């Protein structure tokens, strides 16, 4: 809050006469988004710098982008497919599981990384004035690049496990756009929270783990909640995590199909989170500098 001393309005009158701009006031949302868009090269450069940095100390370098998702899928296959047998009633469990793991990981990793995007760039923030929106957006761009690698692996696995190439594959880009919009919005909300308190980093893993377990990454929600009240199953199915996993499976697997309501929810979550996240992050702009 900026409180003006009414006795000193001469200074403001002078500022107004020569159309000087307040250094502390946030520009309008339109101007803010415009100046963010002008820095799209900056966003790309930040994303690329971070990817380089992430693997700079490891021997295998960026090959980890490929190995990490494969190892993840392997572990889940061992535990849930072989040991616990959650694969009952699911055709082509491998494709079912790998799509779940990859699609969910993108959301989880992105929102987790975004929550640290403001404090991690405090050097840059202290040195140069720019719209802070570029920082969480760079995180999202970096994770999209990683996700693209995972998706190529996923498509290979899906085809290798006997799924035919169908016209439904054409819906995949639509699903991915919706999922990315949702994830970006969610990431922006967490980026603002993470700027306020370091406690978020501690709490977030518990939240994302719970989210993973209720999103049907490695089991069929419909089959597992069959004996429970209908509301439980519906609630789980409509949560954004389950929605986007379900839609990707609908696109890629002939044995999986989504209810039209799931498609609608996919669009609703995307628009809702993206708009709310953008406005919410923008309104906190003043808080990121101190």
């Amino acid at each position, binding site marked *: 809050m900026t409180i003006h001393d009414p006795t000193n309005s001469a200074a403001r009158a002078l500022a107004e006469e020569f159309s000087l701009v307040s*250094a502390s006031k946030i520009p309008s949302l339109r101007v803010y988004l415009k100046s963010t868009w002008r820095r799209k090269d900056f966003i790309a450069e930040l994303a690329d710098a971070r990817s380089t940095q992430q693997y700079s100390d490891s021997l295998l370098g960026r090959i980890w982008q490929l190995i990490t998702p494969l190892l993840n899928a392997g572990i889940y296959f061992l535990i849930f497919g072989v040991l616990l047998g959650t694969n009952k009633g699911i055709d082509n469990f491998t494709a079912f599981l790998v799509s779940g793991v990859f699609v969910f990981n993108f959301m989880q990793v992105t929102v987790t990384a975004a929550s640290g995007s403001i404090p991690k760039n405090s050097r840059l923030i202290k040195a140069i004035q720019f719209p802070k929106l570029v920082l969480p957006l760079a995180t999202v761009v970096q994770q999209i690049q990683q996700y693209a690698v995972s998706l190529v692996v996923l498509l290979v696995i899906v085809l290798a496990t006997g799924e035919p190439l169908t016209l439904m594959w054409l819906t995949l880009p639509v699903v991915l756009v919706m999922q990315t919009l949702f994830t970006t919005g969610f990431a922006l909300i967490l980026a603002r929270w993470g700027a306020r308190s370091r406690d978020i980093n501690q*709490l977030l893993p518990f939240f994302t783990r719970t989210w993973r377990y209720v999103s049907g990454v490695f089991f069929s929600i419909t089959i597992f909640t069959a004996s429970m009240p209908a509301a439980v199953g519906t609630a789980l199915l409509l949560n954004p995590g389950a929605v986007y996993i379900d839609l990707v499976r609908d696109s890629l697997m002939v044995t999986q199909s989504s209810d039209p309501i799931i498609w609608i929810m996919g669009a609703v979550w995307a628009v809702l989170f993206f708009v709310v996240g953008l406005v919410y992050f923008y309104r906190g702009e003043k808080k990121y500098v101190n």
Partner: protein
Amino acid sequence: MSTNKIPTVVVDDLNIKYRVILGANTGSAAGALRSLVSGKAPSQVVKSVHAVKGVSLTAYEGDTIGLVGRNGSGKSSLLRAVAGLLQPSSGDVYTASQATLLGVSGALNKSISGNRNITLGGLAMGMSREEVEAMRQQVIDFADIEEFIDMPMGTYSSGMQARLRFSIAAARKHEILLVDETLSTGDTEFRARSQAKIRELSGAAGTVFVVAHGHAMIREVCNRAIWMDKGIIQMDGETNAVLDAYEADVAAKKAAKEAKDEGK
């Protein structure tokens, strides 16, 4: 000041308070939950420092203003507020264009090369990729780090980091330039070069604020000086008059302290 001058920076009753977190309740899951539920910032042991207390001033086109005062008198905080890098507690700063702060020490990103830091800094300032490429060699030459430019900036000495940071920021055209020398750790040779750069920039039509160790340099380049003490403006006026008064005060305080020490 005559009234027909064009103002470029207007500081209106500016107050800056820092919250310094002394530790305690940071980084617990319970703390985050509590702050999320209550909507309040988590409870921490916090000390408030009132760095700038009700400062008002107007700077005009062509002004080169030297800021003097003891450490902790609020000079750097004032500059950072003018650059929009610090949020005022109350009051405001109005500027004709985005002010650029020179002299913040250290790398923008320690784990990437000097070259990529140039790209990052230029793009952050709103330059296009072409503009960054056009300035790159000039920045490298000015910072004099040609042979290290592809090494991670974390491997640089603090002097080299400061030189590169200064050079990146100085490469852009500025209407309002804020130079905080106390934050930079360049060696003597580079300091001479940066001062030459400041003289060159202050020769143009813009407005320059300088915080410097060397009063000789301020006397030479500044047409106006501001003496700050404990967050307030002690004196604002013609350079030599202000510096004479400040130096007399420093000498008097030193003599008083020596007299007191001897009396013990």
